[in-house]
């Protein structure tokens, strides 16, 4: 009789096992950074499995690119990573210029660096603020937006738009800077520099913030490379790759003569070019804290680059140069170029058969690969860690779904 009872499935099930629950996080969830849907299999508070579902923001951008000329597609690149639209414009423009073997003027080159790095600051500010939001603190988000607002004001002055700029374009830039812009930009940088220390107090070194991020979602360098992670996610794991230094020559030529140190932990320490807070003892290389910290370092790094670019740009005399014609014929052939965008390495590929309209357009999204590693990082963590991990990858759905 007792044997029979032991074998009874119902009785075995009644033992300490708890029920698993399938929970939908998103697509209308406050902390999934847009329309991302995460399906969580949870055992109590513990997430046993996490699966991202994407495609809610798919707009056939690549297909549209095959029906427009190279320059006409620029506004569509704006809408990929809409937080760093300048960098998207730059990536596509450089890819097309690579196919055309075209070189922009010296003045345009420095202006591109200036604008792209300024946009990197803006993008990292949103990443930082939204990360605070993911961890339940609201105020840093608004502080970050306060500063970003000033960058947007500068961009608005330069090109008229605040989010989707289409400023950098194939063959140069659509317009030169208005008078007085450089002074206002320098003014902003001077104002912004001391504020970064506040961010470090509120987030980076905050005890609760460290508790929530240190040792969470540890991404080993091998796994990061296997999954094709790029950008701050890769550098947060201690892999020393930055396309601005290691990329193709057409891209690195843009940063020729610029001094910057890649924000990555080498031999146990980060670059010491500025005063940064110390790494907390709980933090493990490759965890959420390091990914966040790399972004904070890159804000300072970009600030330095903007300062250098202002110098060089103001020394350049002569005209900026006109961008290429809207329907410039592309030579037959193909070109692929990856650039270092704030979120990671963004690649653009185009095949041309000799017409003005490319035959094939393809974009390689960094957020896509970065998000792909999230299920690995979330296995066995708590529900509260899911926003912490996904937020630390700093994804943009517009870029993933395209």
């Amino acid at each position, binding site marked *: 009789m007792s044997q029979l009872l032991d074998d009874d499935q119902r009785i075995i099930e009644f033992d300490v096992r708890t029920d698993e*629950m399938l*929970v939908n996080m998103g697509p209308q*969830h*406050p*902390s999934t950074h847009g329309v991302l849907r995460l399906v969580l299999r949870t055992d109590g*508070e513990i997430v046993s499995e996490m699966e991202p579902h994407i495609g809610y923001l798919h707009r056939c951008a690549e297909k549209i690119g095959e029906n427009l000329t190279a320059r006409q597609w620029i506004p569509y690149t704006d809408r990929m990573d809409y937080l760093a639209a300048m960098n998207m414009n730059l990536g596509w423009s450089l890819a097309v210029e690579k196919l055309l073997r075209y070189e922009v003027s010296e003045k345009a080159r420095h202006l591109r660096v200036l604008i792209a790095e300024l946009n990197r600051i803006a993008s990292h500010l949103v990443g930082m603020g939204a990360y*605070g*939001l*993911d*961890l*339940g*603190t*609201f*105020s840093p988000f*608004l*502080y970050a937006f*306060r500063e970003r607002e000033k960058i947007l004001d500068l961009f608005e002055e330069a090109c008229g738009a605040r989010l989707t700029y289409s400023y950098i374009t194939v063959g140069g830039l659509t317009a030169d800077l208005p008078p007085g812009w450089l002074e206002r930009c320098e003014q902003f940088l001077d104002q912004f520099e001391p504020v970064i220390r506040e961010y470090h107090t*509120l*987030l980076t070194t*905050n005890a*609760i*913030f460290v*508790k*929530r991020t240190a040792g969470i979602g540890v991404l080993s360098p091998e796994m990061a490379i296997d999954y094709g992670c790029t950008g701050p996610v890769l550098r947060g794991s201690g892999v020393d790759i930055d396309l601005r230094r290691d990329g193709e020559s057409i891209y690195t030529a843009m940063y020729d003569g610029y001094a910057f140190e890649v924000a990555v932990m080498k031999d146990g320490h980060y670059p010491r070019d500025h005063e940064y807070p110390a790494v907390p003892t709980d933090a493990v290389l490759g965890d959420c804290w390091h990914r966040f910290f790399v972004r904070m370092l890159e804000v300072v790094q970009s600030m330095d680059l903007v300062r250098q670019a202002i110098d060089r740009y103001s020394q350049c005399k002569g005209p900026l140069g006109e961008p290429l014609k809207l329907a410039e014929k592309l030579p037959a052939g193909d070109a692929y170029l990856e650039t270092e965008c704030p979120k990671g390495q963004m690649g653009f590929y185009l095949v041309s058969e000799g017409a003005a309209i490319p035959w094939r357009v393809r974009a390689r999204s960094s957020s896509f690969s970065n998000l792909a590693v999230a299920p690995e990082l979330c296995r066995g963590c*708590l*529900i*509260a*860690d*899911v*926003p912490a991990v996904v937020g630390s990858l700093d994804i943009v759905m517009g870029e993933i779904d395209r």
Partner: protein
Amino acid sequence: MAEFLIETIGLPSWLAWTAVAAVAAFLILNVIAGGALVFIWAERKIAARIQDRLGPTRTGGRFGWLQSLADGIKLLAKEDLMPDGADGMLFRLAPYVSFCASFCAFIALPFAFDVVGLRLNVGVFFVVAVLGLEVFGVILAGYASASKWSLFGAMREAAQVVSYEVPLGMCVVVPVMLAGSMDLVTIAEKQAGWLTNWYIFHDPFTFVIFWVYYTCAVASVNRAPFDLAEAESELVAGFHTEYSGLRWSFFFMAEYGSMFLVSALAAVLFLGGWNGPVPIASLLGWSDGSSLSAPYAVRLLGCANLMGKATAGVLVMMWIRWTLPRLRIDQVMTTCLKYCTPIAALMFAGVMLWQLFLPGGLVPGSRHQAAAVREAWLEGRGDRVPSTNVPLGVVPATSRQVVGVSQ
């Protein structure tokens, strides 16, 4: 008041007492509702200022002080939604359970010497116990909403509140031990006099335990960084995800009511209750009872004092909320079990030893004269714990004695 109704108007005694109870309930309800309105407005303004914004500026004039009222009207006009799979009765019941728990605890809270809904000889116990009931409303809401996020929120709340009641209880016992009474009125009365008579400054242990109490209080009313039950970045809105309109506002009022309550309790237990830092009343000779009208003025001052302290406590909670990130559930439990509870227990033992070896403080006889007068009175009355329940507005025989003690 009840005696007046019975003796002068000739109402039957049950009717008179019911009327008095109704008046008291009405007044307390107004304190909660009015307080919630003010605090919600204050929270919006404070959050805005912390975040470099302006906050509400238009509704009701320059400072947007009518904003919470406008919000309330909006909530009233909202569609009453209930999810399909919800357990109707429990779903409707839950907000009222929460609100009633918060409301009931106010009954025993003294605002000034005899401005108290019901003077209970186990006031501390009553307040803590009734406040603990609030969690039932949250669990009901989470269970009845038929939403997984709500359930998560409710389970978190249950785990958190039940754990934090332990160190909270230990902290609350310390002033009880010092005063030798569980009656909130007596506890506060014992701290009369100068600032140094407040229990927070009684000895080093009570100073520490006040902060432990405050931490636990923040956790037990679910405010950031312990607001896991409604963690918006993880659980959408936690246990009240499915609530809208007036029902949701009841949860909101309960939350703000509880915030005020635990802060007021902190004021009564550790910060001298209605006694100001400087005994103005006794310095001016009012509380010695030379004038008949004085006690009312003193009581009014006391009310203002207590409200001020409680408000300060609430404002600090807001300040914390808009500054710190949220803890994770396991970290919240660790904070409670590994830090708050042992510290509270140690401090409890420390206070015990202090009371045993240094009952008069480090400098004997340093306590202020006014306190000595009070203590003499309390000693002289023989019973530290009053036996009668005194409703609001009634000047009982006991408090007449306070006035008369030096007459």
